[in-house]
């Protein structure tokens, strides 16, 4: 009987106790990236490098990525933002973006003999380590400009 009564009291006490876990998460606005007027072309996961990225583009870049143009349009501008992956805090079974690793930009400009040329820039983010190697320009330009846009409804 004693056990029953104390159990009942404990359960009632526990029932009335509600733990309010609100306001405990530490938001990390430094993980956000402002792509200005550029819009999303697609996301790219790379599990070998442990990164997750978003390719943004201006209107000509988006049109080029959505269409069947074999060559990117002059005037197209691309931004590939790469973040380091990390496990999602509340959900085992999902990885999400953490700190920014790099920001790569490609501008397609008019070359000498009407062939397009590419201005490429590689900017390091917070999670880029001093020993990390920067990627090779021509390979990155063709990777970035060769991406087809993800299907949006």
């Amino acid at each position, binding site marked *: 009987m004693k056990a029953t009564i104390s159990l009942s009291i404990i359960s009632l006490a*526990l*029932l009335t106790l509600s733990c309010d876990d609100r306001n405990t998460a530490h938001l990390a606005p430094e993980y956000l990236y402002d792509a200005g007027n550029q819009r999303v072309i697609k996301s790219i996961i790379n599990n070998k490098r442990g990164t997750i990225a978003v390719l943004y583009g201006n209107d000509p870049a988006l049109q080029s990525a959505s269409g069947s143009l074999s060559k990117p349009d002059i005037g197209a501008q691309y931004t590939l933002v790469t973040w380091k992956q990390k496990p999602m805090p509340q959900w085992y079974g*999902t*990885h999400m973006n953490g700190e920014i690793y790099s920001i790569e930009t490609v501008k397609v400009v008019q070359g000498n003999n009407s062939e397009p040329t590419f201005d490429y820039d590689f900017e390091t983010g917070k999670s880029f380590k001093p020993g990390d190697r920067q990627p090779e320009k021509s390979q990155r330009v063709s990777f970035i400009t060769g991406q087809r846009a993800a299907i949006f*409804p």
Partner: protein
Amino acid sequence: MKQPGLTFYRGAAIMVIVIFVGLQIISPSIENPPVTSEIVVPVEVKQILERACYDCHSNESKVEWFDKIAPASFLVAHDMEEARSRFNFSEWDKNPPAVQELLLWEMVNAIEQKKMPLKRYQLAHSGSKVSASELAVLKQYVNTLPGRNKVDTARIVAQTSSIRKVTTGKTPVSLNGIPYSADYKNWKIISLTDKFDGGSTRIVYGNDIMVKAIQNRRLPFPDGARIVKVVWGKQVEDAEGNVLPGNFQNAQFMVKDSKKYSATEGWGFAKFDGLALKPAGKTILFEQTCINCHRLLSPENDFVFNIPTK
């Protein structure tokens, strides 16, 4: 001052007994309905589930004598009813295979975050705790489920919104009144995810109110905050390790309005499936499925999973 006499104590004791006996009469009976389709999992996984979860999440509850005594019995009956409504290992086939997988991942997460088994249940049932090594067994198991490495090999289907407008003629609206809107394409990205259960990649957008709240480290999020999560399958990994988005699967909306959606912690939920953007859910109860998981696992994030946090 006059002390209360013996009659007072006797009267009080009789009252307590009367209330206690009365409670026993109206106490809910705890029944075990028949087992219709029991979950099939490896023995080592089954043992953990049986010991830690079956008392509430199955039709094979081993109810202790003290669970049947009021007022505890009210609590036990309530917990069991709630637990069985979430998922029932004895009626496992009621869930489609994809939902079964998601539930198993959810269980692992509820245990990892110490939300399950319930503290009050553990207190009364010593030995129901799931140890770290048992959790590792469960984690290992969910990683063997087919959705873990699911690859979208289908040809990518494109359909522009203009085609959809012609075919359906109207904007899809969720059962709770939230309309689909393509505004999010002009919003900022708040996070990106690679989800293992079911194999998908997601881009999560936030409107200005949401992004400002993150920038100002403001929690809970203010009314007017909106989040849209766009979900694609994952294509096969290329030689360099790149995994590109496959077919569009769905778009999920969360809309903050603390008054309108007070029953679901201030968030209105909507999900639009496939390129036809068919509103998900057969009844308005679909919202409960959403909030149950958010409420259990991300209360400290104002019930949102996909936000940038340290």
